[in-house]
């Protein structure tokens, strides 16, 4: 296998909340990946396939013989390799942390107040983080970056690709609102915390409801002022931040763990017609039918969370399978139960999906849960997540099953560029292997 890094240049124009990916800067090279086993995600497996990458996009995909290889294309022999779309982590903190224990390197959450929708991850995102190349080497090409979970409303997420300049990496800013509900948020104000409101779940819900009502009131006043061309109207950034979410224009990701908390927060979300993506839900086994009935997508993480006392050892391991069985659209995140509880472990994302397969999740559903489903949940379904013509050429070549820990990723393409398979860790390895 021979790779020549093409000199593809691309410019991502940020337009509004979601970047319009400019394909108008043409790639000077065309890549033909030939002879691999293609896991298309959207339309099955092609055993001896051909994948053409051009202009940073997938130009053609199909069985050998059915796809014409353009003249002058760089041929990559993928015989014996598995070819699949880049993996997408639905919850990460890439660029918000470097050394977990060193608080100076962390921009994870603004803890001064529980209601912080006007915090933009895009303001803090450190694109040169060493965490990104480490994850990329295991085939992760895209991720949602979210603030940590200490606030009821923690801020707004970005959707990134794991290569390029900072501007290029941020494919979308303010793509979703990060919300949380449960014991962790309560504790901050509770007896062991600052003894300030809110210190109970009652307080948390009341505060959220009042915030949404205040935003609606603000929207009405703002609209009225606009009609009168009232230049004196003062903008409130906190309320402004919430407007797209109260209008249902963008998704709200709600981090919640327990069954009773899921019911409470869903009732509130439905009251305000929020477009919900549930997150975590690792202790909700008794309300899975309800979750299915709500028709909301679910991010499961960590699949390694501890079961409740006296539960069977695999109560959480089987959750992806149980949700998928009920027709719920699922994503699986890289969140680790033990270990460094941050995106240092994001490279293990495919193994979490594989673990779910071990506990009953159909293989195709597992692969979707870390590719196409994530793209669709966050508004990138037409651009990422499968090997389809017209999608961004984010493609991984590996020497085996992508969900198996023993598999080695050989090459990652992001927007058609063969990314150097180097991280600070490979540099250390090579330095001490001499």
């Amino acid at each position: 296998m021979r790779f020549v890094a093409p000199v593809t240049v691309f410019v991502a124009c940020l337009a509004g909340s979601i970047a319009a990916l400019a394909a108008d800067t043409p790639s000077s090279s065309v890549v033909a990946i030939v002879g691999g086993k293609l896991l298309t995600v959207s339309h099955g497996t092609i055993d001896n396939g051909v994948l053409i990458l051009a202009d940073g996009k997938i130009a053609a995909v199909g069985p050998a013989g059915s796809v014409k290889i353009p003249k002058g294309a760089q041929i990559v022999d993928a015989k014996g390799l598995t070819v699949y779309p880049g993996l997408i982590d639905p919850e990460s903190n890439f660029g918000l942390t470097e050394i977990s224990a060193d608080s100076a390197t962390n921009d994870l959450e603004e803890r001064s107040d529980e209601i912080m929708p006007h915090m933009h991850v895009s303001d803090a995102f450190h694109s040169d983080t060493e965490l990104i190349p480490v994850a990329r080497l295991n085939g992760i090409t895209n991720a949602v970056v979210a603030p940590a979970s200490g606030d009821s409303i923690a801020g707004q997420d970005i959707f990134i690709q794991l290569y390029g300049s900072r501007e290029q990496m941020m494919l979308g800013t303010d793509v979703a609102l990060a919300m949380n509900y449960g014991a962790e948020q309560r504790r901050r104000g509770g007896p062991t915390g600052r003894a300030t409101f809110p210190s109970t779940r009652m307080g948390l819900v009341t505060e959220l409801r009042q915030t949404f009502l205040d935003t609606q009131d603000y929207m009405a006043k703002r609209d009225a002022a606009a009609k009168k061309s009232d230049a004196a109207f003062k903008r409130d950034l906190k309320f402004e931040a919430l407007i797209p979410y109260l209008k249902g224009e963008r998704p709200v990701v709600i981090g919640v763990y327990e069954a009773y908390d899921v019911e409470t927060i869903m009732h509130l979300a439905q009251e305000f017609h929020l477009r919900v993506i549930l997150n975590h839900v690792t202790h909700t086994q008794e309300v899975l039918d309800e979750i299915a009935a709500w028709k909301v997508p679910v991010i499961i993480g960590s699949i390694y969370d501890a079961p409740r006392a006296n539960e069977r050892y695999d109560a959480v391991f089987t959750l992806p399978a149980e949700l998928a069985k009920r027709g719920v659209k699922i994503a699986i995140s890289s969140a680790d139960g033990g270990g460094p509880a941050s995106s240092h472990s994001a490279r293990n994302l495919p193994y979490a999906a594989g673990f779910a397969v071990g506990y009953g999740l159909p293989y195709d559903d597992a692969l979707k849960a870390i590719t196409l489903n994530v793209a669709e949940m966050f508004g990138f379904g037409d651009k990422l997540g499968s090997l389809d013509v017209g999608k961004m050429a984010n493609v991984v070549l590996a020497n085996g099953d992508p969900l198996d820990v023993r598999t080695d990723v050989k090459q990652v393409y992001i927007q058609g560029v063969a990314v150097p398979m180097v991280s600070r860790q490979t540099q250390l390895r090579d330095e001490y292997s001499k």
Partner: protein
Amino acid sequence: MGSLRHPLSISARRSRILPLALMAACAAFGRAQPTPPADIVIRGATVMTGSHGTIEHGSVWVHAGKIAGVGPTVSAPSSATVVDATGLWLTPGIIDPHSHSALDSDVNEATSPVTPSMHMIDAFDNRDADLYRALAGGVTTELLLHGSANMIGGQAVVIKNKFGLDRDAMLFPNAPGSIKFASGENPKRVYGSRDQLPSTRMGNFEVMRMAFEDAKHYMADWDAYDAKVKKGDKDAVAPKRDLKLEALADVLRGKLYVQIHCYRADEFLTEEAIAKEYGYKIRAFHHALEMYKVAPQIAADGTAIATFTDWWGFKDEARDAIPWNAVMSMRQGIRVALKSDSDDHIRRLNVEAGKMVHYGGATEDEAIRMVTLNPAWIIGVDDRVGSIDVGKDADLVLWNHDPLSTYAHAMKVYIDGDLFFDASLPGWGTTHFSGVMHDGGGFGSDDEEDGQ
């Protein structure tokens, strides 16, 4: 940081429910446990021995709790209970040389940097759900260690994961003693934050040297007394026994295996130099994330490592961690074990071993050994467990897939030839446990439970 951690991970920790079953078990202390069949044959499995490669369609004969035969065929009596393991994999029980499970958060006596007379057995809670979850992950032996707050911590307890039996029936019989040392960031942070010694790595190591100077003095007093007694001096007065100095003297006498929490390359070298200065051996460095930088030097000292596969960046001294560390160190002659230091990862150490095929190209044999025979050596029980060899304890795990793949989980777990876990059973899958478990609580490691 708490972003992706479970918020309830420290809840409900303190409930001390004493269920009827446990009281019954306590009342029946010392009774004979229900006896498993005298002879079992596990037939037709892919047998990964841990010591002498893999036997396709192999069989293992268990007699009276010990392995009596292993090979393509075995000559077991016809009365043996036969387990058809066609299509399954059989390995030795998984061994975790670094666990803090079942200690009800009593991991660190972080009130002094030198606490060698602490005994982890005093904190051991044999009803902790974390033991059950580890058993379901195929873990049959654990070294329960003191945490890393102290330069010289407490003495470990070795357990067999016979979940459901009495506390004492879960202890590994006649296992050698181990003592936990630490180094680096944790001790200096814990004591430095209180403006106490140590607050630097200089302080860390000097605390150790001072402790050993005390111990040498104590030993000399006792040696002098013993010499007097030997000479028949009836007026000889015995020195006062001091539990702390006695434990340190046991280190200097080579009676305890020294297990050191240590991350950085320079600290391995300093630890070895201090060990030589005072005349003890270091059994293993734990974590050892920078071993790849100095492996040849350390290999010469015979010290093993118990390492994470791919944890990094959670603290400054873990910044240079690379996932190739284990295999690179192994290739330089270091005996390498993988360990959990986590009530989460202990449930899937087999998958962690699988990563070693990916990171550095370990053979399947080498990878399995990192979670069986090598950790057994670190604990000092490799003559009895850690491989499928005739005469060893019948601690065995049957897996539904290749145990080094992501998809494997334990179907049956035997300890001393007795079935303790069977995934096909309804409910918990336990065979010796019924009652109420204590909540295992969080998935913390000693890095998070060191008194921050």
